């Protein structure tokens, strides 16, 4: 068999169908239309909106390793927090230019991700879960102790973030923050989508499905996982930096176990490994939290907890998983 293939085979419909999997579909415009519509419909909800968008970016970064490479992490706040502190410390120390701040956050968080990935990705399953957790706790303690750099338990105060491109000041209404976060999310989505549909992305799916076989077909599984872990860490770092810059504050909670846990919850609610789970789960969770805690600030935890238990028991796969099941049933 040679690389040149007969025309008959090249024209097989199966090949065409297979090759066109990555084409843009109409529904993929929905999240962006919704985000732009929300900007005009709810001008007084933009601060929340900006945080939702940045958190969606964070969830997207988790989906990349969890949904595609099958790495279960309870410590992705480590990357988020490193990014947040990078952007924050730059802005405190006199460099408040936001876009370069994002890049710096991506680089630093990516490097930390790369190093920790090199250390921990030899193992799988529960042990890996524990190691991700411990790395996050370790960074949390380090930030807690490095008071002169991070402000410790008081948080990093005195960030001076300059206007975006020297023009758009971060305003009280959160309009700039919203559009800034939306742009960051959009760029990240382009990158993630690209990666997911690339040969590399397909090989990640292979790793998730069957790591053993992936090794047997000659894939350097460890290297692939380290690479995607670093990329995901860089994106999470950008998410952290966006939140840091738009709220002009970084606190220890950005590295906390809470954040690692809730981002998982949001993503799983939306649906894992489907690229759009983050876009559904995060807004759902955060809007519900916002509304519930206005009605009943104290017992929000009860209802979200109950929802999670019911979801697992009756609708595994999250919203998108359930939708997929419904449409399948419909077609039959």
């Amino acid at each position: 068999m040679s690389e040149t293939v007969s025309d008959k085979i090249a024209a097989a419909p199966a090949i065409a169908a297979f090759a066109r999997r990555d084409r843009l579909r109409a529904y993929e415009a929905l999240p962006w239309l919704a985000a732009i519509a929300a900007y005009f419909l709810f001008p007084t909800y933009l601060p929340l909106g900006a945080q939702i968008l940045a958190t969606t970016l964070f969830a997207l970064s988790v989906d990349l390793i969890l949904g595609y490479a099958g790495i279960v992490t309870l410590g992705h706040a480590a990357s988020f927090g490193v990014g947040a502190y990078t952007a924050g410390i730059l802005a405190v120390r006199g460099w408040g230019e936001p876009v370069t701040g994002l890049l710096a956050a991506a680089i630093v968080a990516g490097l930390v991700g790369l190093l920790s990935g090199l250390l921990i990705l030899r193992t799988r399953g529960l042990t890996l879960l524990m190691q991700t957790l411990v790395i996050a706790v370790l960074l949390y303690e380090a930030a807690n102790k490095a008071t002169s750099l991070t402000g410790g338990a008081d948080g990093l105060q005195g960030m001076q973030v300059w206007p975006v491109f020297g023009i758009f000041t971060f305003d009280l209404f959160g309009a700039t923050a919203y559009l800034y976060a939306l742009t960051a999310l959009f760029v990240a989505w382009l990158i993630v989508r690209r990666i997911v549909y690339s040969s590399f992305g397909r090989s990640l799916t292979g790793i998730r499905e069957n790591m053993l076989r992936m090794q047997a077909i000659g894939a350097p599984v460890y290297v692939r996982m380290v690479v995607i872990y670093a990329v995901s860490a860089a994106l999470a770092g950008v998410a952290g930096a966006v939140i840091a810059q738009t709220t002009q504050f970084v606190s220890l909670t950005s590295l906390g176990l809470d954040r690692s846990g809730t981002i998982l919850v949001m993503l799983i609610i939306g649906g894992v490994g489907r690229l759009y789970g983050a876009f559904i789960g995060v807004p759902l969770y955060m809007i519900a939290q916002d509304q519930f805690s206005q009605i009943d600030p104290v017992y929000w935890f009860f209802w979200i907890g109950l929802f999670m238990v019911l979801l697992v028991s009756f609708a595994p796969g999250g919203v998108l998983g359930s939708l997929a099941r419904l449409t399948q049933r419909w077609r039959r």
Partner: protein
Amino acid sequence: MIRRLSTAAVAWSVVLAGVSLTAATAQTVKVGIVNTYSGPEAQVGDQLDKGIKLYFNTHQKDLPAGVKVELVVRDDTGPNPEVAKRLAQELIVRDRVNVLAGVIWSPNAAAIAPLSRQAKTPFVLMNAAGAAIPRISPYIIRTSFTIWQQAYPVGKWAAKNGIKTAYTAVSDFIPGHDGEAAFSKGFTEEGGKMLGSVRFPLANPDFVPFMQRVKDAKPDAVFIFVPGGKQATAVMKAAAEVGLKKAGIKIIATQDIVPDEELPNIGAIAEGVITAGIYSTAGDRPANKEFLAAWKQAYGANSTPDFFSVGGWDGMAAIFSLVKAKNGKFTGDEAMDYLKTWKDPNSPRGPISIDPNTRDIIQNVYIRRTEMKDGKLVNTEFETIPAVKDPWKEFNPEKK
């Protein structure tokens, strides 16, 4: 493209929301409360909330006819500045509140402060005690206290009352650092000698190792600062475990370590502790008796207010006083002109006033001893230092 979109949208939302930013046009005055209702530290938020609601419910009838005060309550879930800042932002932009208030945590307050400046919204700090916070925005007044206000005088008191050597043990965050610095300064100024200090993490389950260090150093007294709530109880238990009292080491602290409502939980170790505080339920003042009676009626005989509650109560008193004086209509600047000189000679904690220069509170600081009275532990005030200004601001004048 994006630029035009953004500018247009900002302009448009200003039109929508802007008017109410500068003036309270309606007769309803909206007060946005940022407080902690969930998370591990919710109990202190609960105490503050009860103080706020108690004043609100008992004084609504005193408002001028046609004027209403509405509370808009938000949960910041703990020391969580991003959330607190967003909530404050939403309160200003979405709910168009006329006054911001509440806030347990200094980091949260520091995150909100720039917004109050930007939006010219008065911000009544009801608890957060970080000394420098009022300087971030000219629209802040504080009705609680600062750590310096208590730790510095109690340091002086200790040195004057036979304590020669001391040690400090504080939580590793700004208020803790404030306490350490203030106590040491007061204590050494009066000739006392510091033997050392230890700082422990803000969230810490067991304090025994730290208390043992204190015990090893054998000082006459130890100054302790931890945020009120479960940390206070834990640190006192640890002091009992290692036997500080038996070793003859006196415990000196700010009020945070012996909140009135926690005293039964802390138990016998609390007896003999000397604290500087701004409020004790044992305070023998008519206004306090009235306050206590109202409290017990509203929340039951087993519920006890503490200094968190009083901060909320007095903060609401300031806001109500403003609303009455302006008949429910005021701009941010008008409000600040009024609040800056606000005073109440009859607060449950004694006479209080706002220092027009620093917008911080001036109040009596009481030296109290925790003791058994009628089978219950109480904080008995036995010495009063009248009209204390925040010493930190005296030592660190604002550079203009």
